[in-house]
């Protein structure tokens, strides 16, 4: 089986954000993480392309992403003071969307920094 090799990959596990990692991956999992530290290695190997979890859950029951998105929109828009929280393990592009969403629902947006 041929492996996909990604050079100059970036590890987002800790604040060092090392961008010189070489990843070797098959279709399902990353099998080698050159130059990554032990924390980075377990981070990369801990996530696979398997469908291990349901796409979405509503009240604990499997649901479609479409339904979950609609339910989320209802909850957030109907709240007086919704909170958008976390933001550390997502991309800047997702963070930018999150701020726009917080504005649209009139909420608070916060990250780990405030802890």
């Amino acid at each position, binding site marked *: 089986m041929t492996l996909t090799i990604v*050079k100059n990959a970036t590890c987002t596990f800790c604040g060092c954000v090392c*961008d010189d990692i070489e990843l070797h991956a098959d279709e399902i999992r990353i099998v080698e993480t050159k130059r990554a530290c032990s924390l980075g290695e377990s981070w990369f190997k801990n996530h696979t392309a398997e469908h291990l979890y349901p796409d979405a859950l509503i009240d604990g029951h499997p649901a479609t992403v479409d339904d979950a998105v609609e339910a989320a929109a209802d909850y957030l828009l109907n709240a007086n003071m919704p909170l958008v929280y976390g933001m550390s393990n997502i991309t*800047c592009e997702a963070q930018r969307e999150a701020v726009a969403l917080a504005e649209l629902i*009139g909420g608070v947006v916060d990250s780990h920094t405030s802890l």
Partner: protein
Amino acid sequence: MGFVGLLGCVMLRITGGKVYDPANNINGTIQDVCMDNGRIVADVQGGRTINATGMVVFPGGVDIHTHVAGAALNFARAMTPENQRAAAKFMHTKTTRAGIGGPTPTTFATGYLYAGMGYTTVVEAAVPVLSAKHTHEELRDTPIVDKACCLLMANNEIVMDLLEKGETERAKDVVAWLIWAAKVYGVKAVNPGGVTAWKWGKDAKQVHEPVHGYNKVTPGKIIAELAKIVDELGLPHPMHLHCNNLGAPGNVATTLETMKVLEGNRAHMAHLQFHAYGGDDWHTFRSEATQIADYFNKHKNLTCDAGAVLFGNAVTITADGPWQHLLYQLTGRKWGNLDVENETGCGIVPYTYKGSNLVNAVQWAVGLELLLLIDDPWRVFLTTDHPNGACFWRYPEIIHLLMNADARKERVKKLPAKALSRIVLADLDRQYSLYEIAIITSAGPARALGLTQKGHLSVGADADIAIYNQNPDGEHMFRYPRYVIKAGEIVVEEGDIKNVRDGHEFIVKPQYDPKIEDFLKPVFQQQYTMSFENYPVELERVHGLQQVKIS
């Protein structure tokens, strides 16, 4: 939402207004201006008509030097929450994003504030390659206005090391490669050599003395070589220069020396006000605007912007790290410093210009003096080096002072008595006409930038237009445009943002030998901390990209 620009083929006619289009020698003639599909056209059949009777029609404003996006400005935002709290608030509406004004506005507010004043193109004047990705992200969320960036280059150690070895041809390839890597429009030189020296806590104050850590490289050599490289690469905008010794008493000598070095090449002298001082210390501080203007008037290879100061709160943000350390020591206020590996640095100090302070009074006068003493308005442009001298949204206050000698003289009377012998402002009677205001706010900077589709209303030009109610009070007139049109669409009407669309970003691709990467990669790997392959900005990160052809 600021995300989606509304695209449309909107026909529009402005009729009855007095048109000021200096690039076409049109000086207040009443004539129609038509546009279709974002461009000026000779005529339109149908579409909306704006009756501009009693109003004046200007090409949209062009800011040649401002700091509105990037790591340094974003650092300043973090440092000054007290400014944000006191600043104007921008409400979330159906068309606009929430935001905050003040000296370091949020990106969305920046777009609304510029457009709200009739400005449609802005140049972010200080971008490091290392964080250029970030600058482009901020510019993506700076709506309405078109944008361009100048790349910080005069303290780039790879370039300086090549100049030390006399390898100027290779330096040229490196500069060209870096311009394309960062996806920018022009080259900026800030305190050449001084920021690199600051990495060891030193500065570079003498134009012809070697920079700390070098034997042959002097600020003068960096300036001359970079100006030459920019001209040889054929960039539309000449080297954009922030001289050594910014803000220091007696720096007129440095500035004159620098301008002599530039003979034979083009250059744009940024915020000249900060470089036109006499005196030996803060007690003997005085204006040398006359001396600078005399030299400048005779040397047509140069353009400049004023970098005028207004009394009130500012935040000084500059790649000139050593000056900022001095300012911190002088004021005892907050100081932020951010050194960027191998490339540049930046310092941030909040500052208040006080009318009662002798030095500040002289600075205020020098900015206006330069604008009045430089005789060719096509070579001096309105800026405040935002947010260093004052906030950009205060430009109308300066316009008023330029157009009204009596108002200026009244204000001079309120300065400290000691200041009056240090300045010449009280003796200047020149008053700017509307035609000249259109030059220094639009036609002139557009021409200096080489943005051929901006700053005029010829057929084919971008349909960026500001329409003002004529008013003897220049400040009021220029603060509240009646309409602002961007790319043929009405974006501001009576002070309200009516329509938000995303602007373009202008970039250039100068020619270089692709083999330069073979030289750069090992040097990069030794001196930097990221992967060489991750260093260039990917093309798709520049939103609304427009590549300007190099002649």
